[in-house]
């Protein structure tokens, strides 16, 4: 009986519930369906992108915590395509000589999305993976549009903000008021002058100019922000609150090395250049520079050379200044042998640095018969003749098990440095493999790392380097090989020459190892 009552009450409730749905005056919250509103929004975005006559400046930050810093692009959209201007170094890095055009689309996805959906080496640079960096730089190329203003469009990366405890990786498109090429020329000019180690003032700051990070000391608290270059200085990824004022944009005056906040006009910071300033302006990545025997003059823009005095250990090696430039002159080497000198540059406060310049000729000083040996195993030794090949490149002719192989070598004339790559073809021949298999095999290079525990397998793009130097101790020309693997995480520690059943470097065709040389070096 009780059960029945409950049933009846429930059923009586039913029409009451249905009745409430019959209000006549209910209105839609929105006039149009969500898909139509989305479509209109995308059309608004398209019109905004297209209608900017000079396009947009895009301060782009890869990686969810902006660890690699910010990079400035200029984007010019038409109804189908986008033309991408990038910073000079990036344009050169991807082998381009100017802007590159590709397609884009606006679509409804995780909200309104702007997608660069055909490849453009410049805009996809930070997103492109490789066997050495399997996530690239974790850069986005699809963006959710957050808001559209008259002169500014707010976006966030669609993919990379992914870690749920992190805020979205927000970026802005800012409407340009001059041609994109002009704007980028100013950005490049700023980037080419900005070599600050830090800046002093009421909010002292340190810079990491390689990763474009600024760390401010705000009343005793350390605050880090990535930054990107603008036409007049730098802009921070997001504002820093200094005594109630949000600061993010700085004008940079290179003649005084002063940074002035655009938001707080009384905030001016006095910058100072990095210690390796002169190496950087000379474009050197190491403190040694190898030149040929001919006379050579190197001229580079160096706005702050007047901070330094120079001394030299050789009369054939001099440095002078010419306006904003420094001029390094090396006279012809008629001595008949390799020679080197040291340039020392000193600041007023006594800080100093050095560059060793060598004059060396390939045919005379570098080419010839070497042995490929191991620092850890004296019994290993393979003859290797270093020479120029017919195609104008360089190679070692290596003899292994009486078979001749050819190691393709990239030889950097300016640093007397050799480079050998993994998964390159060294030739074929009859070998007994380390697993005792005999036969005719194709040899491809591979390298080991983590104490020989792992190998680079079938992946190209791992490099062994060697600086060819004259070693007085052993009275011989020597190149000890060194290199890193997987985003500089591992040191390479050996060559593992691998045999394949076909001329194809893959798991399917691998037969075994031909030769292993731990801690390799070449000695002449």
């Amino acid at each position: 009986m009780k059960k029945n009552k409950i049933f009846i009450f429930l059923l009586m409730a039913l029409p009451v519930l249905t009745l409430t749905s019959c209000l006549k005056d209910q209105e839609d919250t929105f006039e149009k369906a969500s898909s139509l509103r989305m479509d209109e929004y995308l059309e608004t975005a398209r019109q905004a992108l297209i209608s900017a006559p000079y396009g947009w400046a895009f301060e782009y930050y890869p990686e969810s915590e902006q660890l690699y810093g910010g990079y400035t692009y200029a984007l010019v959209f038409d109804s189908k395509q986008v033309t991408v201007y990038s910073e000079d170094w990036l344009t050169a890095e991807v082998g381009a000589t100017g802007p590159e055009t590709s397609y884009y689309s606006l679509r409804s996805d995780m909200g309104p999305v702007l997608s660069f959906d055909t490849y453009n080496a410049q805009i996809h640079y930070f997103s492109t993976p490789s066997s050495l960096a399997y996530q690239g730089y974790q850069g986005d190329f699809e963006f959710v549009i957050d808001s559209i203003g008259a002169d500014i469009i707010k976006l966030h990366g669609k993919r990379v903000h992914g870690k749920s405890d992190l805020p979205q990786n927000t970026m802005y498109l800012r409407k340009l008021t001059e041609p994109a090429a002009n704007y980028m020329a100013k950005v490049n000019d700023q980037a080419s002058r900005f070599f600050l180690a830090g800046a002093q003032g009421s909010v002292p700051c340190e810079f990491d100019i390689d990763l474009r990070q600024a760390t401010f000391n705000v009343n005793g608290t350390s605050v880090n922000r990535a930054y990107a270059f603008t036409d007049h200085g730098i802009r921070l990824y997001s504002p820093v609150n200094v005594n109630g004022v949000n600061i993010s944009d700085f004008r940079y005056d290179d003649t005084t090395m002063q940074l002035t906040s655009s938001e707080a006009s009384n905030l001016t910071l006095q910058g100072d250049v990095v210690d390796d300033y002169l190496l950087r302006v000379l474009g050197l990545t190491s403190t040694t520079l190898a030149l040929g025997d001919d006379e050579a003059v190197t001229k580079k823009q160096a706005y702050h050379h007047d901070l330094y005095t120079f001394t030299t250990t050789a009369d054939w090696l001099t440095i002078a200044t010419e306006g904003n430039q420094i001029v390094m002159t090396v006279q012809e080497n008629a001595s008949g042998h390799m020679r080197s000198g040291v340039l020392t540059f000193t600041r007023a406060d006594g800080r100093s640095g050095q560059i060793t310049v060598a004059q060396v000729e390939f045919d005379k000083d570098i080419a010839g018969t070497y042995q490929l040996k191991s620092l850890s195993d004296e019994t290993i030794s393979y003859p290797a003749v270093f020479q120029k090949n017919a195609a104008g490149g360089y190679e070692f002719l290596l003899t292994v098990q009486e078979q001749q192989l050819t190691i393709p070598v990239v030889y950097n004339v300016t640093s007397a440095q050799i480079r050998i790559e993994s998964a390159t073809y060294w030739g074929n021949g009859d070998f007994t493999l380390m697993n005792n298999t005999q036969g005719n095999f194709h040899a491809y290079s591979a390298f080991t790392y983590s104490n020989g525990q792992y190998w680079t397998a079938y992946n190209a793009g791992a490099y062994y380097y060697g600086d060819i130097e004259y070693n007085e101790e052993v009275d011989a020309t020597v190149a000890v090989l060194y290199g890193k693997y997987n985003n500089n995480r591992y040191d390479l520690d050996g060559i593992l020459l691998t045999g394949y059943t076909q001329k194809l470097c893959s798991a399917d065709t691998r037969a075994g190892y031909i030769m292993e040389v731990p801690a390799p070096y070449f000695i002449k």
Partner: protein
Amino acid sequence: MNMKKNIFYILSLMMMGGAVLTSCSEDSLSPASVVVTDRTEENAFDRWLEANYVNPYNIDFHYRYTDAEGHMNYYMVPSRIEDAIKLAHIVKYLCLETYDQMVGVSFTRGYFPKMIYPTGTWEFKNNGTYILGTAEGGKKIFLMGTHYIDQYTKTAEDLNHYYLKTIHHEFTHILNQTKDYSPEFRQITTKTYVNDAWSDAPYNVGYLGRGYISAYAQDEDREDFAEMVSLYITNPAEKWEEWMQEAAQTTNSEYDNKTGRQLIEAKLDIVRAYMQEQWDIDIDKMRAELQKRQNDVISGKIDLTDLTVY
């Protein structure tokens, strides 16, 4: 009695509800569609694809990056449009049109996967290795590495290894799923399939002698079958004979001391019969045709960039 009463109550209450419900349908259907497709302006390649993929085969050559079509645990980038154009020509000339010629366009239209999704790079794993391509349930072929297309279309070996073998291999799976092959195939080397261990020592070498055409063929019989077809039709007869001579040098005690060659050729007989009887494809003719077409591509006889629509 009680029960009946209740039923009466219930029925009347339900009718009340029903009456109320039907009384408030004043809304008319809106004439405006809420279905909106994304608007992307057509370009010359889109028109070419319409004429060469959509109209004849109803295949979507999906060259615009769409993350949902890929694998979210890998970082990928789109194809350069110029590279996608070349790949579209290669797949059309070397796959679709070869099947058209061998069997007929309705066969290709009926069985070829309905989407080809090209992307720029390979799928790089965090250990430095990478994936060249995958196929999903006979519906989609995911072809990676269009960035390297100029580099890998210079020799037949590269062209096959990096792009085409994947397509023929996966297409063979689709054919097998539609019409199964004889169970005798599996019996030939049934004791020595090794599953995932195929890429490890000792299985990664000497597979020919053990009666498998590739290391991967040792995985299982379905892969063995697909490897047999794809390697047979994409390689020249001399290359196959070279493999057979190597295979002939080893005997297998598990299989009455038959040589690797005998085992592979026994499988090949079943493959040949299956393709002929079930699909009317003569694999020798197919191989000859593919050789001719591969040479056309490698020698540059086929213009891979022409977007003229006839």
